[in-house]
């Protein structure tokens, strides 16, 4: 399944200030295939940055970092045969469970499992505490922005974000304007992609507030780890994640328009051809709610019902995993078979809530991303705790000129691109590829942004030849209803190819279990 809409952009920066003025002054370039980066500063001589930060081995004087001590011991004590046997067991487990993803366009039945790496990624409590605060803050700001963008647009009137950024955005849904959603929440489930580049340096790579996926892997990976490495598990105090679905259900129930004590919540899936279908079924099952397709629902007199052998039953909240455009053939794409005719009317009448809200794409596309730190300041009056990766917007003449000059060093992404498609990773691209991309860029500069190549942190990972460092990222899941909840950790994705910075599952990425250690636990 393609977990993210987007690929990874490696980058490093000492300064996360993304104001255009500061961007021109520094850049990072990537030399050769090895993990070495040079930071060039204006008027300052070049210096070699240290190799990518390794979350296990980059302690003082290359010692093992405290949170990873138990993992390092375990690796030293476990024989290669045991490891090989365990890895085989994992593969069988995932296949039998049917935890598979099928990329769109694949032949029916062609199902692949996402490679799972059994070495956990460990995060100390104090590190998590910091991330937790930053995530809550960022999602609060994104929610405030969405309510504003579909309301009074005060942030535009204040001159912080140009109105055209909102109104001319391809993801803007006019029909979602002026809605008073329960709790004022639009992004109920947010997946915020983080990367790490140093002991204390985390960046937000992108926000996912439409239909972020991947949480089922967090839960299944944990099950697998407890089964396969109980000895390691018991040597550390790992915070549990199993209550995610409980919290998710509570969140969904808390945003019903009706004051019914037990609102009827359903999960709307495009069906089993969707690459994330396993996750849809898994979440519905864990929450004990119905997994419905568009054909299971209908609208009558402004209310949504599901078809059952007992007759029609009212639906109050729809956790949809169907994209905006397909939700209602009467209001959006008329050729959609995945939606429900009249659904938007029921939403506007306040009879059913749709989670996540419609039109959230205006908050998480790659050009709006550059404004998020400003949103935090504007709506919350706080300084952002988590920084953005420095980003150049190609629709700005100065930025664009700079980007064109430095294409071989940069990562260039399509604003609405996803799944690692429509992007250029400068340092690993050939001259011809860069030239080809330049043509695309010049045709529609407003369709692209660029970021420096970051030295993503690495984690020890089992590869063919043994254990080697591989680049990772992290997607925590933030739930917002009447309150905000984040299960400790999130989904760690790992690029299994040496030197690769692309962690998307559709591009050969794998996953790891993410262990947040309890306060006071060894190394925390």
């Amino acid at each position: 399944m393609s977990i993210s809409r987007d690929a990874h952009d490696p980058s490093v920066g000492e300064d996360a200030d993304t104001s255009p003025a500061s961007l021109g002054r520094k850049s990072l370039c990537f030399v050769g295939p090895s993990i070495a980066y040079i930071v060039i500063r204006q008027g300052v001589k070049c210096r070699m940055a240290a190799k990518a930060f390794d979350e296990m081995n980059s302690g003082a004087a290359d010692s093992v970092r405290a949170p990873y001590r138990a993992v390092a011991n375990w690796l030293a004590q476990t024989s290669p045969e045991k490891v090989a046997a365990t890895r085989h067991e994992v593969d069988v487990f995932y296949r039998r469970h049917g935890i598979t993803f099928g990329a769109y366009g694949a032949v029916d039945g062609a199902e692949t499992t996402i490679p799972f790496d059994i070495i956990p990624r460990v995060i100390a409590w104090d590190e998590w505490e910091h991330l937790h605060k930053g995530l809550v803050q960022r999602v609060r700001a994104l929610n405030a922005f969405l309510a504003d963008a579909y309301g009074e647009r005060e942030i535009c009137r204040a001159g912080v974000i140009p109105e055209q950024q909102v109104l001319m955005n391809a993801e803007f849904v006019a029909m979602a304007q002026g809605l008073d959603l329960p709790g004022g929440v639009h992004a109920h489930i947010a997946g915020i992609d983080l990367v790490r580049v140093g002991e204390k340096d985390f960046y937000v790579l992108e926000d996912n507030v439409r239909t972020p996926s991947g949480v089922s892997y967090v839960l299944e990976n944990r099950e697998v780890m407890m089964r396969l490495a109980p000895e390691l598990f018991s040597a550390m105090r790992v915070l549990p994640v199993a209550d995610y679905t409980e919290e998710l259900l509570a969140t969904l129930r808390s945003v019903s328009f009706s004051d019914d004590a037990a609102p009827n919540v359903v999960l709307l899936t495009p069906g089993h051809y969707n690459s994330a279908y396993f996750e849809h079924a898994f979440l519905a099952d864990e929450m004990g709610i119905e997994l419905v397709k568009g054909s299971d629902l209908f609208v009558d007199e402004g209310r949504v019902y599901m078809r059952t052998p007992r007759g029609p039953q009212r639906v109050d909240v729809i956790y949809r995993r169907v994209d905006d455009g397909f939700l209602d053939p009467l209001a959006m794409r008329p050729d959609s078979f995945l939606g429900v005719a009249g659904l938007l009317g029921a939403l506007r009448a306040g009879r059913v809530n749709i989670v996540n809200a419609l039109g959230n794409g205006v908050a998480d596309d790659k050009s709006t991303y550059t404004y998020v730190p400003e949103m935090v300041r504007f709506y919350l009056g706080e300084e952002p705790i988590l920084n953005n990766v420095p980003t150049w917007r190609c629709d700005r003449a100065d930025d664009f000129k700079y980007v064109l000059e430095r294409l071989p060093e940069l990562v260039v992404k399509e604003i609405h691109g996803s799944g690692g498609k429509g992007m250029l990773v400068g340092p690993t691209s050939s001259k011809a590829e860069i030239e080809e991309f330049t043509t695309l860029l010049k045709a529609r500069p407003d369709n692209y942004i660029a970021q420096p190549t970051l030295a993503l942190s690495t984690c020890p990972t089992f590869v063919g030849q043994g254990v080697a460092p591989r680049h990772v990222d992290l997607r925590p899941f933030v739930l917002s209803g009447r309150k905000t909840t984040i299960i400790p950790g999130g989904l760690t994705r790992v690029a299994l190819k040496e030197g690769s910075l692309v962690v998307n599952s559709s591009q050969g990425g794998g996953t790891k279990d993410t262990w947040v250690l309890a306060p006071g636990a060894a190394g925390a």
Partner: protein
Amino acid sequence: MLSSTAKNLYWMGRYLQRAKSTARLIEATQRMALQSRGEEAAGVAAIFGMEDEFRQRQQQSSGRLASLIDFLVIDENNPSSLVSSIGAARRNAREERNNITVDVWESLNGLWLELSERLRGNRALLDRGALIESVKKQAVMIFGAAQVTLLRDEAYNFLQLGAFLERADNTARILDIKFHALRPDGNPHAQELDYFAWSEVLACIGAVRTYRRIYRSALDPMKVAELMMLRRDVPRSVHHCLWMVDLSMRELAEAYGSRGEADRLAGELHARLRYTRIDQVFDMGLNKFLGGVRGDIATLSDEIGRQFLLD
């Protein structure tokens, strides 16, 4: 529970049972062919209502029985082949991952994976016997998993409805066609008895030993018919299956607090099998009696679809 869920479980039960019945029938047919004549193939095709397709295939290939078996086992273009049936059951189950237990899903998915694995290799070297054996054994395990792990709710009853309606129809069909092939005049007492042929009829529903236990006597076509149709204690008999169908219908009626035409028909079919004596069946004509029962099973299936909004 959604209507689409009811529908998927109903069809999962039907397809799985169809695969199981087919596997058993093919085995019995093969044994029969080894022990006596090789003319069984056309009769088997008739059981599946596929005489025309079979004749077409026969003209294209030399080995008659082998060709039929491939048609029934691995032909993905034949919607009733073992491979197609298991594939369909798995698709239904996959859509209802959240409404069945891990045990049921894993055993069904495991079977499907095994079949896919077997089919991936060289078809000429494919061990058909092992494949059929696998389907037979694992289908029992899947139904077993359903029996011991599924919550006894509406979903369970729809799975049962599908499985038992299919099984009732399969047994009725086998008896109807085999009996006709062995006794074209419909008279159970005429001619000398072909012991092997009649024991293979019983083998189609796995009831050779059951027959001995119940009757403790030599094979008698009338008793074979009685066992397959009217014995309530034989789990594959038409009577037993329709009893189970009626039970599931009653449970659903209780849960929903309403009854319809499907309930009436299920009750009537059950009563007919329960209160008819075997001599009455033969007075009427076995073929006619079974034809009526099979027609009503088809009608019941339609009525279930209508009553529970499955269509």
